[in-house]
C-alpha cells in the first residue's frame, strides 16, 4: 500500500474535543511558564467535558519536557511525545496524537503549550548553538528577524514582491484582531504605518514582525467514537502532514520556497481527500508578514510570487471570500515564541461556531499550517466539523 493509503486509514479517526488558552494572555510577569501550561490543560479538559485525570497521553514542545508537565499535573501518562522542531511542533503533534489514539496507545491526548516568551518567568533557556555558534552568531545573526529577512529579500528579488505587499498582510490581519477581545492590538493599521514603523532589519519594520507575549494553550483529542460523548461538537482531524528540511537557512535548498511546507501540505490534503479550492478558512503561522504568502506558494495554493494576492482586495479579511488568520495572528493577537498551538485553537473554535464577531459564516473545512524555525519544519492539519 502506498504511503497515502495508509494515511487515509487515519483520516477522521480522532477529533479535537477541547481547546483553550491560559486564563490570561499578553504580558504576565506574575505567571510562570508552568502555570501557563497547567491553566491551559485544565481549561481545555473542562472545555471537552473531561477530567484532567482522564488524560493518558501528553504531548508538548519547548523548555518543559512532557515528563515535567505530567509530574506537575499529577498524572501518569502511558504515552508521551516531546518532539521539538520549532513553533509548528504542536501541529505536528496532531498527527502523532491521532496515530497514538488510533492504535490505543492512549485514549485522551493533550497537546499543551505554555511559554513565558516575554517575561521569561520560570524559564531555563537552553539553546543548541553547535552550528550557529560557529558560522552565524559571530556575524550578528542570532534571532528570527536576522534570518527570516534573508528568505524575504530573495523572494523580492526572484518574484518582484514589494514592501507594500508584505505590509498588506499586517493590515489584513489587524482587521481580524480588532474583532478578537483576546488580541493584543485592536487599532486599525494602514500600509503607510507599517512601512514607516521603526526599522528592525530591512526588509522588516517592527510591524512586519510578530508580537512577543506570555501565554499558553492546549487541545484535547480523543477517538471519534468517544468524541461524541464530549461536551462540544467534535472537530474531525481529516488530514495531517509534517516534514523537516533544515535548521540553518543556508541549507534551505528551494529558498525562498519551503520544501518542508510543500511536503507537509501535500500529504495533509491527500490524506483528507481535499484540494486547495475546498477550504473556507486558513490559519497560517505568521511570525513575519512574508511567512503566510510563502506558505501559500509552497503548498500550491498560489503560484510562486502570487501568495500575497490572497491578502489583497479584502479577500482574507472579515467578509472576504477566504478568511485567513481570524484570531489576529502572531502579528496582532499573540505570539509566545512557539505560536503553533494558537492557530489550532482558532480553527477549532471557528469550526464549532464559537467566534462571535469574527465568526466565519458556514465554515466547514479549515487548514492549519505552521512553520518551525525559518520554514525549517512544517506541520499541517486539515480540520472539519463534518466527516
Amino acid at each position, binding site marked *: 500500500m502506498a504511503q497515502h493509503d495508509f494515511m487515509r486509514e487515519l483520516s477522521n479517526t480522532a477529533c479535537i474535543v477541547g481547546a483553550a488558552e491560559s486564563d490570561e494572555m499578553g504580558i504576565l510577569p506574575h505567571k510562570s511558564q508552568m502555570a501557563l501550561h497547567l491553566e491551559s490543560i485544565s481549561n481545555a479538559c473542562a472545555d471537552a467535558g473531561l477530567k484532567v485525570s482522564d488524560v493518558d497521553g501528553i504531548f508538548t514542545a519547548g523548555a518543559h519536557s512532557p515528563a515535567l508537565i505530567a509530574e506537575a499535573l499529577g498524572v501518569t501518562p502511558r504515552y508521551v511525545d516531546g518532539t521539538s522542531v520549532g513553533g509548528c511542533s504542536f501541529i505536528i503533534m496532531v498527527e502523532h496524537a491521532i496515530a497514538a489514539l488510533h492504535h490505543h496507545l492512549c485514549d485522551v491526548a493533550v497537546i499543551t503549550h505554555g511559554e513565558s516568551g516575554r517575561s521569561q518567568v520560570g524559564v531555563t533557556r537552553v539553546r543548541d548553538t553547535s552550528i550557529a555558534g560557529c558560522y552565524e552568531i559571530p556575524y550578528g545573526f542570532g534571532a528570527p*528577524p536576522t534570518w527570516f529577512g534573508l528568505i524575504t529579500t530573495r523572494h523580492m528579488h526572484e518574484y518582484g514582491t514589494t514592501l507594500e505587499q508584505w505590509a498588506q498582510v499586517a493590515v489584513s490581519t489587524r482587521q481580524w484582531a480588532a474583532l478578537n477581545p483576546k488580541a493584543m492590538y485592536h487599532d486599525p493599521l494602514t500600509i503607510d504605518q507599517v512601512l514607516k514603523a521603526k526599522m528592525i532589519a*530591512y526588509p522588516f519594520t517592527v510591524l512586519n514582525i510578530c508580537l512577543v507575549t506570555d501565554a499558553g494553550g492546549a487541545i484535547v483529542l480523543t477517538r471519534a467514537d468517544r468524541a461524541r460523548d464530549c461536551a462540544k461538537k467534535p472537530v474531525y482531524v481529516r488530514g495531517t502532514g509534517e516534514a523537516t528540511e533544515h535548521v540553518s537557512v543556508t541549507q534551505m535548498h528551494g529558498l*525562498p520556497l519551503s520544501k518542508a511546507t510543500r511536503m507537509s501540505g501535500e500529504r495533509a490534503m491527500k490524506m483528507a481527500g481535499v484540494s486547495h479550492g475546498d477550504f473556507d478558512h486558513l490559519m497560517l503561522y505568521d511570525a513575519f508578514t512574508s511567512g503566510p504568502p510563502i506558505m501559500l506558494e509552497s503548498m500550491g495554493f498560489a503560484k510562486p510570487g502570487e501568495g500575497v494576492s490572497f491578502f489583497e482586495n479584502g479577500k482574507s479579511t472579515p467578509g472576504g471570500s477566504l478568511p485567513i488568520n481570524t484570531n489576529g495572528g502572531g502579528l496582532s493577537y499573540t505570539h509566545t515564541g512557539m505560536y503553533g498551538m494558537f492557530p489550532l485553537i482558532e480553527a477549532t473554535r471557528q469550526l464549532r461556531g464559537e467566534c462571535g464577531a469574527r465568526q466565519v459564516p458556514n465554515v466547514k473545512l479549515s487548514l492549519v499550517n505552521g512553520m518551525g524555525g525559518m520554514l525549517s519544519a512544517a506541520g499541517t492539519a486539515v480540520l472539519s466539523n463534518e466527516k
Partner: protein
Amino acid sequence: MEQLERPLPAPLAPEAKPYWEGLKQDKLMLPQCKDCGKAHFYPRILCPHCHSRNLTWIEASGRGKLYAFEILHRSFNPAVKTPLPYVLAMIELEEGPRMLSNLINIKPDPALIRCDMPVQVVYSKLNDNFTLPFFQPAKAN
C-alpha cells in the same frame, strides 16, 4: 581589512578543523565529496548530497554572489560591536555551498545592495586562533 569585535566561534567540531586552520592562512577551505564531486558547507563527516563518507578538502576561489541580505538596524547580539546599520548576508559560493557572513565595504542602503551581485571574500583576523571570512562587492575585471 577591518578589525571587528564579535563573539568567537564556539564550540568547534573536530571535523571542521581544516576550515578554521585554512582561514588563519587566508584560505577558504571547503569539504568536497570524492564520489559525487559536490562541495558542502558547513563541514560534516558525510556528504549531505549523496551521503558518501569519501571526502576531501578544496580551496574555494573566494568568489560568489550575494544570494540574500538584510540590513540590521537593531542588534540582537550585543557581543557584536559593529556599528548599526550593517549588512547580514547569505553568500552563494562559486563552488555551490551557501554560507552566512556580512557584506562589508558598501553603504548599508537597500538601493545599492542587490541579490546576485558578485562578491569576493575578505579575511579578518580576530585573534591568533580565529580569522573570519567576510565578503565585499567584487572588483570589476
